[in-house]
């Protein structure tokens, strides 16, 4: 028994040695084309198949570079990535969060400057580049994917009740009332998971209330007060949603909301473009509405959020191969592969982007026409301290809907919280 085990081990060792030698010889005969495997880090565990297809296209063009997609679950990506980078075992190329979170990794020396990636300057517009740039204009990641926000609506319920498209926020509320009177749930959203009320409702409608990017910059420069009348109005709008949420909305989770809309019980649903795929198989017609602006607004806005960039590890062993990959993403070939395989609702950001096939994804893109776009309000400046603007928006939104805060109190709390660390709020 012992002897045979020994023999087995010896044989195994000999075999691995042989194959290893074999590989070496194959490599030596073609030294110029040494095959390289890159590891790609990501938080998109749902997209493993799609990214495999995209990266497969890349390897077709560059047969010597293989890329392995190695995602972590979204909620733990930032901390896992940091641990990996600190331990020197970070991926060669990785998804990068926009703004403060990404900048921090660049400042700590883990993200490389990507300004010399071939085609970087030509392939991306300035507004697309800026979310992954430091304050001094050093790009730490190439723009990769954006998401949009809007209101999903059930076309059949709208047809039945003779509804079309709400003109403004008050009109939208009257739509909600009509839908409620007809026995449907007007809005599918709930509070249980918290992030969704913040990211897909509050930040979805915010640009319309604060005046898009120009408005946002006025807050950051200290021209407008964080508890000013527009912010109070925004929290009032959040509070006005209360009667139209599902019964027991306090304990309705994001998945419950998806189910309420998908089963036709709810007529409208504030959400992001990434959910398009979830409703692919429902048995009714649906479409996308832009978030309504308050009555009398001169212009309308869409939250078109820079979601994922692609960064390069400063200590990668294969910098040239990583740069080849990064520049390919922006090229017409790469953008075509992304448009084809990226899950619907994630929009490639290269100027070379080809036409997207999915009709609902195009509906989202069409919302941008004639409207201003901006990223989610909290992202550019308000995440860099504690309590973060995100947390304050969340507590305020939940507070006004549940009635624990008045809109004025929510706005005051928003400003007071930011004032603890953010100078323009003082």
């Amino acid at each position: 028994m012992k002897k045979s085990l020994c023999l087995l081990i010896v044989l195994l060792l000999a075999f691995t040695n042989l194959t290893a030698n074999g590989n070496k010889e194959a490599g030596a005969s073609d030294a110029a084309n040494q095959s390289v495997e890159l590891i790609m880090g990501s938080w998109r565990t749902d997209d493993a198949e799609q990214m495999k297809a995209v990266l497969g296209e890349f390897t077709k063009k560059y047969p010597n570079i293989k890329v392995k997609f190695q995602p972590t679950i979204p909620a733990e990506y930032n901390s896992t990535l940091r641990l990996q980078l600190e331990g020197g075992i970070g991926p060669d190329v990785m998804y990068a969060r926009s703004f403060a979170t990404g900048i921090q990794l660049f400042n700590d020396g883990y993200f490389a400057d990507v300004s010399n990636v071939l085609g970087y300057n030509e392939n991306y517009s300035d507004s697309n580049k800026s979310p992954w740039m430091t304050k001094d204009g050093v790009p730490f990641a190439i723009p990769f994917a954006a998401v949009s926000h809007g209101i999903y609506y059930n076309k059949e319920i709208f047809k039945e009740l003779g509804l079309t498209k709400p003109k403004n926020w008050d009109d939208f509320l009257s739509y909600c009332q009509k839908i409620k009177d007809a026995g449907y749930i007007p809005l599918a959203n709930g509070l249980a998971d918290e992030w969704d009320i913040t990211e897909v409702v509050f930040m979805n409608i915010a640009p319309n209330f604060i005046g898009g990017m120009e408005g946002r910059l006025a807050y950051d420069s200290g021209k407008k007060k964080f508890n000013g009348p527009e912010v109070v109005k925004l929290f009032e709008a959040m509070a006005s949603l209360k009667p139209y949420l599902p019964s027991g909305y306090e304990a309705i989770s994001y998945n419950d909301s998806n189910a309420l809309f998908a089963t036709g019980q709810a007529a409208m649903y504030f959400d992001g473009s990434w959910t398009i795929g979830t409703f692919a198989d429902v048995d009714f017609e649906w479409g996308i509405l832009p978030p309504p602006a308050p009555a009398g607004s001169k212009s309308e806005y869409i939250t078109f959020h820079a979601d994922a960039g692609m960064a390069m590890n400063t200590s990668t062993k294969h910098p040239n191969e990583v740069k080849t990959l990064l520049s390919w993403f922006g090229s017409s070939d790469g953008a075509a592969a992304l448009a084809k395989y990226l899950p619907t609702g994630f929009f490639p950001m290269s100027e070379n982007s080809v036409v997207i096939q999915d009709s609902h994804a195009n509906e989202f893109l069409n919302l941008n026409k004639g409207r201003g776009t901006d990223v989610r309000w909290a992202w550019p400046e308000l995440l860099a301290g504690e309590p973060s603007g995100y947390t304050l928006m969340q507590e305020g939104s939940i507070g006004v809907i549940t009635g624990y805060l008045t809109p004025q109190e929510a706005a005051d709390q928003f400003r007071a919280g930011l004032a603890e660390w953010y100078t323009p709020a003082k």
Partner: protein
Amino acid sequence: MGNSINKNRSFRWFIYILPALAIYTLFMAFPILNSIKLSFFTESGSEGSSFVGFNNYIKLFTHPETSARYWSAFRNTWVFFAVHMLVQNILGIIFANFLSNKLLKGSGFYRTIIFLPATLSILVTGYIWKLILNPQWGAVNLFLKSIGLGKFAIAWLGDPNIALIIISLVSSWQWVGMPTMMFLAGLNNIPDDLYEAAEIAGATDFQVFWNIKLPLLKPVIGIIAILTFVNNFNAFDVVFSMANVNGAPMFSTDILGTFFYRVGIAGQHPVGIPDRGLGAAVATITFILLSIGVAYIMRITKSDKGEV
């Protein structure tokens, strides 16, 4: 010569505890000491960690946001613990009392039912209970509506006043089998002649329970109190599966476990950069609290004779 053999023998016991000692040191003592050490350091990226003295502790108790969250989690953990002591452990002792009745038919069946939830993952039971309590299609509210009590069909996990109690009750339901089994074992250890003597003296069932069973179960009560205390102050998963890591709604179900997770492991969404030093400070304080608590419970529930 005989002497040296004796000497060898007297140290031989050491060899037997060596494996346990090694595992304990490597996987228990070392991480605890390391985490205490970490609580005096800060970690900020490429600069590596630097010694900051008691700054993490000072931040934990003086930074308004952080300390408010810490004390709210601290309070909630005590509520969580109180519900377990009152519901889980008292039900445990009642169940054990019934199950130890030799006249009870099918006690094996009841024992299995009571113990069954403890064998399931809390992530599974938490999720199932979340579905049962769902305000739209949960069984509880559908039932209440069908018997005409629709006004009581509320969002059980959405009301900050009751969400924590509900979650504690689910956790008690899950683990009630543990104290039941331990009390049952304790009851089976009580010599029969005591019961016979009580019967001859004409004691009622309640008198038997109060004057014989309960005093003799004191050491078991102590062990169960310690286990409940330690488990509750380290709990995380039931809140994670039934609410979220923020302790929704409005931090009302935020316990020390979820607070520690947010601070030390995952970081606050969406930035998600943890402060490990601060997290270690939270863990260290919990560790000290547990040590004191365990010592205290052991003291007050020590059997008078010093044995079970």
